[in-house]
């Protein structure tokens, strides 16, 4: 491996110029001396001349080399510019690709959300006729909207009254004793908690005709077992109500 650093063209040119300068000075001195003295050393002037010519030739060659090197350098600069241009083009493309990817990702995500909501809506769809039928059923019986001529004292309520509760299947099953459950109970027969079967009013909320074929979900009969997940303890929700309902003896936690 060559560890000798080549002298740069500039240095060589400068040294050649220096040589030329030295030689031409010597020659001129010799010529100046030869006016007064005869040649002390014959042939020296021709020697110097030869050296001068040689150095000049070298100088010319070096100039040619320098010119060529300049051309090469220019080409290099042009190529570098090209490379820069291509680089910026690539960066621009990169930016655009990134943007496009981002937009597409957003679009895909939103489309997926839309599909999800479509699925959800389809799952929960109920025929409008059924909804109207149900709405009619619950409003016609004044279960969700008070009758227009309702006054305090009217026994109708938005929930099954005592009378209705006792005359249902549960009432018959349990044969509940009367123990002052609030309500509007006229009559002794009802107070005794029993109604003759013939007189049993059949309220639509017991719906035996509608519910033919409908079965409740199965359950292991033992409700004493702990179900998965436990009861909610949402204090905030119910708090408002208890603060409204006066100063009773409930201990506030």
């Amino acid at each position, binding site marked *: 491996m060559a560890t000798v650093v080549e002298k740069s063209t500039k240095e060589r040119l400068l040294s050649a110029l220096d040589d030329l300068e030295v030689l031409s000075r010597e020659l001129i001195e010799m010529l100046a001396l030869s006016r007064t003295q005869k040649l002390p050393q014959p042939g020296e002037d021709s020697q110097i001349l030869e050296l001068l010519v040689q150095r000049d030739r070298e100088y010319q060659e070096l100039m040619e080399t320098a010119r060529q090197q300049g051309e090469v350098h220019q080409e290099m600069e042009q190529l570098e510019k090209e490379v820069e241009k291509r680089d910026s083009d690539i960066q621009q493309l990169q930016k655009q690709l990134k943007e496009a990817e981002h937009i597409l990702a957003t679009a895909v995500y939103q489309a997926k959300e839309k599909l999800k909501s479509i699925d959800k809506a389809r799952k*929960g769809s*109920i025929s409008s006729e*059924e909804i109207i039928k*149900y709405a009619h*059923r*619950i409003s016609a*019986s004044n*279960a*969700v*909207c*008070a*009758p*227009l001529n*309702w006054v305090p004292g009217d026994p109708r*309520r*938005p*929930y*099954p*009254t*005592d009378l209705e*509760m006792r005359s*249902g*299947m*549960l009432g018959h*099953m349990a044969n509940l004793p009367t123990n002052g*459950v*609030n*309500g509007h109970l006229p009559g002794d027969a009802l107070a005794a908690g029993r109604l003759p079967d013939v007189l049993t009013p059949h309220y*639509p*909320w*017991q*719906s*035996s005709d*509608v*519910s033919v074929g*409908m*079965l*409740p*979900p199965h359950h292991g009969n*033992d*409700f*004493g*077992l*702990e*179900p998965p997940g436990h*009861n*909610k*303890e*949402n*204090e905030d*929700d*119910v*708090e408002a*109500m*208890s603060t409204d*309902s*006066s100063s*009773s*003896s*409930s201990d506030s936690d």
Partner: protein
Amino acid sequence: METEEQARNRFQSELEFIQCLANPNYLNFLAQRGFLREKPFINYLKYLLYWKEPEYAKFLKYPHCLHMLELLQYEHFRKELVNAQCTKFIDEQQLLHWQHYSRKRTRLQQALAEQQPAQQQQQQLLPPQHGNATAK
């Protein structure tokens, strides 16, 4: 396993029971006898949540019971139901809510009735103008 007859009876009794929960007085009754403190009962209330599904809910005549059922899942609510004042308050609010729609309707009808005379006056003004146009 239960027979279909038993299942049907169970369906009907559960249907009746859940609708009874719409009655705040009944809730007070249950609370005072300590049913709401028993773990099996609490689990049963959780099981009854199946009535919220549309295919079961369509049998409910008194939909207030579903809201009561949801509230009954919270222990604080169950504790409060022992107080008669609490259930009285619930009863009052329930009745007021029940009357809300009919009150709104009567108000609307009144407003409509008030608008009627004003509209009639406007109609009396219009015909003469039409008469002028056709005369030309």
